[in-house]
């Protein structure tokens, strides 16, 4: 996100400031280590786990506009020795939507975005962090992302055929099984596009990067944006 989608990070930063937080971006940070770990090399990523802890342990909350990173820290940092720092960091690492609703407990946003959008619920966010109820479960449906989008004036959400099917990125899966990866992405895009969505939004940049790659190659007239950009949008 730092190198290729800074606008999502900028939006997150600005939004948090707007809501009265003291926000710092530790410049020495690198990566949560998920890509390597998912590829089967979690031992190799242990160094980046340790670095993450070192970079972030002094804060009250660690907010990431990325469900997959947050999931990885909370679920897979059990590989590290569970010192007080490690336990603290794992407990305070939150997805942006969790921070906004569960910590700041916001009930409204000064956001305006009069467009027809489709919400892509990332698997790590939905099934991993339980940001919402996945369609497989027989539970009362809730959704943090829907709740936040409901605070955005003028926004229309399209109804998809498959509300929470995976986009097909899956980290190294995207190059290990490119055919299925692309097919899954194409199918997701078609679902959104056929329902009239102008923009596909998600809380996970990795999903969007994958979808955007297909969109721009196939020249489909649909855009992708990170949810932080929508929540921070005052005018467009």
């Amino acid at each position: 996100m730092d190198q290729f989608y800074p606008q999502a990070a900028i939006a997150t930063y600005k939004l948090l400031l707007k809501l009265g937080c003291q926000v710092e971006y530790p410049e020495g940070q690198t990566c949560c280590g998920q890509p390597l770990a998912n590829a089967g090399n979690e031992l190799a990523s242990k160094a980046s786990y340790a670095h993450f802890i070192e970079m972030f342990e002094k804060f009250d909350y660690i907010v990431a506009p990325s469900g997959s990173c947050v999931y990885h820290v909370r679920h897979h940092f059990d590989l590290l020795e569970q010192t007080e720092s490690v336990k603290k960091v794992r407990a305070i690492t939150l997805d942006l939507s969790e921070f906004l609703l569960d910590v700041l407990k916001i009930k409204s946003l000064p956001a305006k975005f009069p467009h027809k959008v489709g919400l892509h619920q990332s698997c790590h966010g939905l099934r991993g962090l339980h940001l919402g109820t996945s369609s497989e479960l027989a539970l009362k449906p809730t959704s943090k992302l829907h709740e936040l989008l409901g605070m955005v004036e003028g926004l229309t959400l399209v109804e998809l055929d498959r509300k929470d099917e995976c986009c097909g990125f899956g980290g190294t899966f995207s190059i290990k099984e490119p055919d299925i990866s692309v097919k899954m992405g194409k199918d997701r895009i078609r679902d959104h596009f056929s329902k009239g969505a102008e923009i596909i939004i998600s809380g996970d940049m990795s999903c969007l990067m994958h979808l955007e790659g297909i969109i721009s190659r196939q020249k489909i007239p649909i855009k992708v944006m990170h949810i932080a950009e929508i929540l921070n949008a005052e005018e467009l």
Partner: protein
Amino acid sequence: MSHAKKAAIFNKDEARTDWHDASLWMVRKKRDFAVTEIPEWEFLREFASDIKSHTLSKLDEYLESFEKAATQNGAIVHWATDAKEHNDIVLSILNKHHAKKMVKSKSMLTEECHLNDFLDAHKIEVIDSDLGERIIQLLDEPPSHIVLPAIHLKKEEIGELFHKELHTEKGATDPQYLTEAARHHLREKFHTAQVALTGVNFGIAETGEVVVCTNEGNADMGVHLTPVQIHSMGIEKLIPRRSDLAVFTRLLARSATGQPITVFTSHHRKPKNGGEMHIILVDNGRTTQLGKPDFRNSLKCIRCGACMNTCPIYRRSGGHSYESTIPGPIGSILTPGIDLKKYGNLPFASTLCGSCTDVCPVKIDIHDQLYKWRQIVSDAGLPEGGNKTLMGMLGSGLAAPRFFHRLGNLGRKILRLFPGNEKFLSFTIWTRERNLPKAPVESFRDWYAKQAKNE
């Protein structure tokens, strides 16, 4: 061939992939509807999971209780440590009765043991009596789904097969007509077979019964018309009490096909008058899996197939691309324990989306186990795990801020040199069908640093 390669071949026919995907998604949707009819669904899943976990923790005791009760009922209980022993036992029963013809209802266990091929080699005629299984038997193919064996076939293909094998009209594709032809064909087999074999959905430790669930009635047509009936059961299929069946019969069919219950749920307890009833308890690697704390939960599986129906990868690649008896998500956590080299690529045939875990009626942590198998595969130095040295270097690089930032900046700057980056690097795997992200002028770090300066 790896799953990735087979999946690539499968995806060459996009229309067919869409058809296969839509067929299975439909079954998933039926399951979703069926689930809404049980308000306590999530509680049932928890109970089912706990019952199975409990049973596995006392499996030795329950197997002994089961054997005792079944023997008292007049059944003959056999123990098979592996596939070979299972097959030998079946053959010995056939030989004892001079039987040359056996009907068989659906049993993934016998697929696992390659029973049909074995009996074939011993000149025993085996007829698979489930319609889907019969179709693939006539085609000499393995099943592509554990519940819907012929889901990958179109009715035109089945019509052609039946024309050749059952002498139906050429070009006939009406499923009603074709099923009727199969009914007559199989009826004759039920009456002329000398032995019938079934799988077992649930073995009840308390009563020694075996429970067999079907929609077609073929398992019953088989066993009630032959004097000798054999039931092949994986040792993990045991549940403690008859009353536990309530939980499982409410979960199984709804998860598998969206029906409230299978048409027939048969409870076989004693042999028929003048008949013989054999139960073969099969290990074949299950006790080994039991010893793996990270993976033993996979033994809770009740073979419903829901994980396959929901898996976006399975739907778009088909069961045959896994090259394992049990394909899909559950297959990908069961088989690496049997042969890590052969099946080590399967845990990577997934985006770890977690949908399988959410539909599993016995709450197997499938996607977590996929992640754990990946670690084992790469520790074993297998190709899917990537080059260990390279991975180690990357790992260190990812933890070193200066290297990480320099690499990122370099990547972005290189991309900026090629404004229309569509065709650039189109020889890489990513860029065959996708563009690379557009490279912005400024990274977030650059922007942030500027902000700090301005303050």
